[in-house]
């Protein structure tokens, strides 16, 4: 029971009292068009805009902040400070205007240097894959071999890549095969280890299928072992190319001649700091592209 009871007549009094504004005499208000953002299409639209916003804004902001920081650092250094973003950008435009000139040894366009480095990475990594993949399969398949190789791999794997360069120079007497050797020896470990791990992790179910069907060794390899190991192998390849790209810059600094690493060192000798900064970006961008490309390939072989 409420404390105040309102009967019909008192309600009428309230309604008609001067304090309550009577409803306007006009009929129902004109139906207002639904605003676009409240319609279904509008909501989908605003959602996708939001998604785009969330995807684009943080990286753009990050890059902007980075450039700003760079600007502050270079400005605070005065005349002898690092070149700023604008100055570097101008130098880059000039540099990439003619990337493929060739003025004899030690003076080639940036394009040539990049291609030389990529070639070395490709060749050194290719050799590593050629040796590492079969070796990884064997280590994974044969316990005895795994036991044999384990101490050798554990010993050699942590060695800094550049420590291998003098050995290469001594054995091959030339810089080109020596730098390939460095790439080879430093990028082979991830391939071996990941392939071996992949082989030893082939699910027993799949191997049981092979046994029940009594498949030949070749069929076991092509239909079961290889496809099952492929994702692990791709991980190894990705890590291995990453290492190779890291190592090439350092190796070329020491061996000289051509390549992005040599170019960095050459520009250091010329005291062309803009070019060194550009080189850092080039190395970073190419490394990123290699990684993305291999990720795309790896996803193609992911069956889970």
């Amino acid at each position: 029971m409420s404390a105040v009871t309102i009967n019909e007549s008192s309600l009428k009094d309230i309604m008609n009292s001067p304090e309550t504004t009577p409803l306007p005499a006009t009929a129902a208000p004109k139906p207002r068009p639904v605003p676009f953002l409240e319609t279904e299409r509008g909501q989908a639209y605003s959602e996708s805009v939001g998604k785009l916003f969330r995807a684009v804004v943080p990286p753009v902001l990050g890059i902007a902040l980075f450039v700003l920081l760079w600007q502050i650092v270079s400005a605070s250094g005065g005349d002898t400070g690092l070149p700023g973003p604008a100055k570097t950008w101008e130098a880059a435009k000039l540099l990439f205007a003619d990337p493929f000139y060739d003025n004899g040894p030690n003076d080639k366009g940036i394009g040539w240097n990049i291609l030389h480095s990529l070639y070395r990475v490709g060749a050194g990594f290719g050799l590593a894959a050629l040796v590492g993949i079969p070796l990884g399969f064997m280590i994974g398949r044969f316990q005895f071999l795994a036991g044999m190789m384990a101490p050798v791999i554990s010993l050699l794997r942590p060695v800094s890549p550049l420590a291998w360069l003098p050995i290469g120079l001594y054995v091959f007497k030339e810089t080109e095969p020596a730098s390939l050797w460095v790439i080879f020896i430093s990028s082979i470990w991830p391939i071996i280890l990941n392939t071996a791990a992949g082989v030893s992790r082939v699910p027993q179910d799949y191997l049981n299928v092979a046994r029940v069907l009594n498949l030949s060794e070749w069929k076991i390899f092509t239909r079961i072992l290889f496809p099952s190991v492929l994702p692990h192998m791709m991980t190894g390849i990705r890590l291995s190319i990453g290492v190779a790209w890291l190592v090439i810059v350092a190796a070329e600094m020491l061996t000289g001649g051509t390549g992005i690493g040599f170019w960095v060192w050459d520009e250091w000798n010329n005291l062309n700091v803009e070019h060194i900064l550009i080189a850092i970006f080039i190395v970073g961008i190419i490394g990123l592209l290699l990684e993305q490309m291999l990720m795309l390939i790896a996803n193609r072989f992911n069956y889970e």
Partner: protein
Amino acid sequence: MHNYLHIENAKMVFDTKKGKFTALTDINLNVKQGEFIALIGHSGCGKSTLLNLVAGLTVATEGILLLSEKEIKGPGPERGVVFQNHSLLPWLTCFGNVHLAVERVFGAKESKAKLKERTQAALDLVGLSHATHKHPNEISGGMKQRVGIARALAMEPKVLLLDEPFGALDALTRAGLQDELMRIVKETHATTLMVTHDVDEAVLLSDRIVMMTNGPAATIGEILSVDLPRPRDRLALAENPAYHHLRGQVLEFLYQKNLKQAA
């Protein structure tokens, strides 16, 4: 009638870290051609081990195992196995998975067109004509198990070995596949050995139910003949007193005579 599958005094001892473990002992079983046998027992009673012995995936420590008078020495395509977890190769399509088996068994003496025909026929038999070119990750659990059955049947095996094939499926899908399996076994006259822990499944499908005692050193406790007329219909059986009597006998064996001690 001669014994198609003959198991005599089979014993299986595993070497474990804690020493020898006797999983099975004194297993004696004779299966006639075309018979459907269900192996039932509590988990860990070694029913899957027994199936693996027949499959040749494990070799018996002692005893004799013969299939149509030949000794079982290792796995072979004349024994089609359907695994509990389907074990399809994810990088092959349904067709590819079945074709792998067909190719192995008939590849040497038949044309490529004939092999494809056999593969397709096996998929048709399990009602998967429409999913031929799908990969295992694109189909349901029940469909995967059908592909597993198709793969086993396509080899035209002497015996079909099913290791809890429907254990991982929901009740409705399971019922559908049980009916399907009854139809397939009727059409192909396959000799079948099926591991199950489902009493209804065992009574519905089999001619004889082999009930196993609890491990370690499990053995065959009782063998129950299921003389229900075929074709069997699950709805009609629900009203059938004989069905309930058989079901009761299995339950009695499992829960009174051989109740597993709570661990």
